[in-house]
């Protein structure tokens, strides 16, 4: 899909509030997408990631407010996630500023909040936020840890490894919630499938083929198993990632 094509308004809700330091863009192509060898590539990533972590806090907080009757254990996990993602915001802010970045220097995207908070039930939100976007994050961080290690950037290796441990916990509680819900009511599986389809359609509209094509990593099988995915699901994620890489690699 080209970056100029229109958004399907039904797939996106209102954005979260941001102060005047920040400029929100709606599409990946409008962001500061530096090539891999550009000196600002990493610093821009810290800023972008800091804001994505903010979306993580906002989504977990929104669901805590919106679903007061959800099981107390899952609410505890979401409350914990609020604090973890808030800490991740601070972690990325610290490394961003210590390496010369200034808050608001680069545009930000709030598509995660716009897509997820727009879903009307907790199962769909956890499937998309934790089990899809954050599970993808586990894959991405594994790749990023290897890259940082190759560059000898130990501070970043430490940051990513701690972030990854937290993200695995977030994916795991969502997986447990999803399996329990489907066990109680097998029709919930349809809801899961519907939420994933909506989210991936919305995600493609934001990213465009340019944004998705820039993804270089495969699925982190060990991380996904630890996060509570079944063996078959992990294999499927790996196959999907290989297909995606092969198809964009041939363009």
């Amino acid at each position: 899909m080209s970056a100029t094509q229109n958004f399907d308004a039904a797939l996106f809700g209102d954005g979260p509030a941001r102060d005047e330091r920040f400029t929100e863009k709606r599409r990946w192509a409008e962001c500061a997408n530096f090539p891999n060898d550009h000196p600002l590539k990493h610093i821009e990533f810290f800023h972008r990631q800091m804001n994505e972590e903010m979306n993580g806090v906002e989504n977990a907080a929104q669901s805590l407010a919106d679903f007061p009757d959800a099981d107390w254990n899952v609410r505890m996990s979401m409350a914990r996630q609020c604090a973890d993602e808030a800490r991740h915001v601070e972690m990325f802010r610290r490394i961003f500023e210590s390496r010369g970045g200034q808050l608001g220097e680069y545009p930000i995207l709030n598509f995660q909040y716009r897509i997820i908070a727009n879903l009307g039930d907790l199962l769909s939100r956890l499937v998309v936020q934790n089990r899809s976007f954050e599970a993808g994050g586990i894959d991405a961080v594994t790749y990023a840890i290897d890259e940082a290690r190759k560059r000898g950037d130990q501070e970043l290796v430490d940051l990513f490894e701690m972030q990854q441990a937290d993200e695995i916990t977030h994916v795991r509680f969502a997986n447990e919630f999803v399996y329990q819900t489907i066990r109680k009511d097998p029709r919930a599986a349809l809801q899961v499938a519907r939420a994933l389809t909506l989210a991936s359609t919305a995600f493609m509209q934001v990213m465009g083929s340019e944004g998705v094509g820039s993804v270089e990593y495969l699925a982190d099988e060990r991380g996904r198993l630890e996060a509570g995915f079944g063996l078959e699901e992990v294999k499927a994620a790996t196959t999907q990632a290989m297909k995606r890489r092969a198809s964009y690699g041939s363009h």
Partner: protein
Amino acid sequence: MSLSVQQRAEFVATFRFIQVFLMETIARWVPQTPEMEVKVLFGRHIWELAQQADSLGKRVYELRAPLQFSLRPVESYVQVLEEFARTETTPQKISGFYDVILPGLAARYRNYLERTDHLLDEPTTRVVEKILNEFQKMIKESETLRKELPQLCLADKNWPAHLAKPEVSVPTIVAHRPSAAIA
């Protein structure tokens, strides 16, 4: 005056109701609040409030009420909470929570500690004392942030009184029930 097991359970369940209400209020404010540093502060404190509610909810079960049981406070205190939840600007949200509601709740927790027998009810006193320490830390963190970012301080210094007055005017927050009604 001594307290029965049921009366103690009612106090603890009322405290849990308030903790959950505050957690939900702060959570609802996170996406609506523009300032990044405030979102981070609230995000961290949501987890504090949740853990405090959880420990009260476990204690209430030991006091022979259902696990994680909450009891709605008297209506006049619910109105105070609802008025607080309607707060609009960021400086008012911060001041309302850290300068009025948390200190007011801390006073009620201390009042409970004065009333209960510390030997008979030691598990509750441990939970409540821990929460009081955590409240102090939360309030301190809000003060540090307000020092760093003075734009988060209230311009109208009289504003907290509008929330504090009705808060202190509610003498007791527990809506006691007939005997054995919460088991």
